[in-house]
């Protein structure tokens, strides 16, 4: 692996090396993530998953990539040419740019930015433009619906994401990702900010357009949404961007909430231990995101929006205020856990109450006269069973 901050003296050469490292990492991790997702989904669904290409199908993604590159790059005749062709880049470049500012270990990053957290969130937040462009330019109604959904969803969920990260930055006292990690060398932040952690996960799921928030690309409704007219290499760029996004949010979660390379070993950990720590923590996030994808159904667009604006954003601001009080009055840290935990309980209660959870009882009409002895196996929609 490349030492990402290796200084060769020439600024251009340095930039080129950093770029190469990021591209290599992105591509490799995407290949592995796609393979992993296919395997996890297969195991959840009791299938085998890819098995043919390479041992346990490890090379399947490469085979797919070769296939995609060989495909014709189609463009609908009525499409808006330049917007259509530039849309994949508008999705791809921001995710790509965000990768630059993410540190992997204490010494490894393409660039250590003082405003790292701010930069990462800002850069990833730009990708909605690409979805909107793709949706608009395809001249397809499904794509238009999907593009509009994507824009609405990504902008909305940017707000709770940013606010909850602001809350974290308040506690850590810095926007520099390295310093945030350093702050957590004894206790990771998800202990002090359970509500923030929860909001972060939900907002990340929405930003990544994964179940239960895959509304813009909903397969059974808008058939891939903005991507519907794309094929071959352009489509694979969207795909690459989405998996890179998964990687970025997982890394961000590992850094900001799970203590990155510091917790639980503290500053004593060597380079390899740091790498292993960050790898394990990122993998936890990735596995969780993939698991959720196959366990939950999709929300509807209005439910999605009202959930964001009526639940997540107020709760995220609540978190900020709580942190503010604790910091200003210098209350003990335990208070943070207490208040934020209460907020989390509130969030879960709201989800529970938001829908009609009244148990539905089926009336069982016995056939052939006599009363039936057997209890129905599914009477209760939300009861004990």
């Amino acid at each position, binding site marked *: 692996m490349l030492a990402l901050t290796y200084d060769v003296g020439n600024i251009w050469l340095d930039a080129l090396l950093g770029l190469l490292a990021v591209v290599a990492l992105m591509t490799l991790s995407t290949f592995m993530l796609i393979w992993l997702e296919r395997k*996890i989904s*297969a*195991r*959840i*669904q*009791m*299938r*085998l998953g890819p*098995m*043919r290409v390479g041992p346990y199908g490890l090379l399947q993604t490469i085979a797919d990539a070769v296939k995609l590159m060989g495909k014709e790059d189609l463009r609908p005749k009525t499409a808006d040419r330049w917007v259509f062709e530039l849309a994949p880049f508008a999705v791809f470049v921001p995710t790509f740019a965000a990768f630059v500012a993410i540190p992997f270990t204490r010494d490894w990053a393409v660039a250590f930015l003082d405003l790292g957290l701010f930069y990462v969130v800002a850069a990833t937040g730009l990708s909605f433009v690409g979805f909107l462009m793709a949706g608009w330019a395809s001249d397809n109604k499904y794509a238009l619906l999907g593009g509009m959904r994507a824009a609405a969803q990504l902008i909305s969920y940017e707000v709770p994401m940013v606010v909850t990260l602001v809350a974290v930055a308040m506690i850590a006292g810095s926007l520099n990702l390295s310093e945030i990690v350093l702050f957590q060398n004894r206790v990771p932040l998800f202990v002090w900010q359970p509500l923030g952690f929860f909001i972060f996960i939900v907002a990340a799921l929405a930003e990544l357009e994964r179940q239960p928030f895959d509304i813009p690309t909903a397969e059974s409704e808008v058939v891939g949404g903005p991507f519907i007219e794309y094929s071959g290499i352009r489509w694979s760029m969207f795909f690459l961007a989405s998996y890179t996004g998964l990687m970025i949010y997982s890394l961000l979660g590992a850094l900001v909430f799970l203590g990155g390379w510091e917790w639980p070993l503290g500053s004593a950990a060597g380079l390899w231990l740091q790498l292993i720590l960050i790898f394990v923590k990122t993998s936890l996030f990735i596995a969780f995101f993939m*698991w*959720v994808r*196959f*366990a*939950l159904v999709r929300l509807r667009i209005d439910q999605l929006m009202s959930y964001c604006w009526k639940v997540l954003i107020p709760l995220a601001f609540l978190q900020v205020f709580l942190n503010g009080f604790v910091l200003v009055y210098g209350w003990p840290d335990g208070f943070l856990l207490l208040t934020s935990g209460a907020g989390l309980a509130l969030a*879960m209660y709201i*989800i*529970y109450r938001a829908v009609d959870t009244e148990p539905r009882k089926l009336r069982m009409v016995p056939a052939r006269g006599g009363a039936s002895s057997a209890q129905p196996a599914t009477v209760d929609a*939300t009861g004990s069973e």
Partner: protein
Amino acid sequence: MIGIFKSMYITFATMLRKPVTIEYPAKHRDVPQRDRAFPILLWDKDVDEPFCTGCHACERACPVECMTVTMKDNPLHADGKSDRRKIVDEFWIDYGRCMRCNICVEVCNFEAIAMNNTWAGHELSTFDRNDLVLDLQQLLAQHKQGKIDEWVAE
């Protein structure tokens, strides 16, 4: 949230179970003896000729009209080797039309036709649909070579 956790739990539980699928073209599951692929003709090994006499019973009963049969005088009968006076001359079955209803097997008076119950009878994709029209020799080949353990309902 209870229901969401339940969904998460059940997906995790199934992740730990054994996969139920097999790698199909590499491995085949056993087909039951009654398996019905496409009809084939049977070969009378004692006399070394087809059982089929070309009586047109199956052709008439076929709902999709996928069969064509012609009949001829049996040369072996003239030699006294066979007690079949007439025998099938040509026999075509269009597997592209056949709907595998088993009716030809039921109407056959000589038990000369049976449904293929091997994997060879299922994996028949071709590039040209004309290749799916099988002639007498192709229809007889599998049973002639003893590759089939046919099952005919009594």
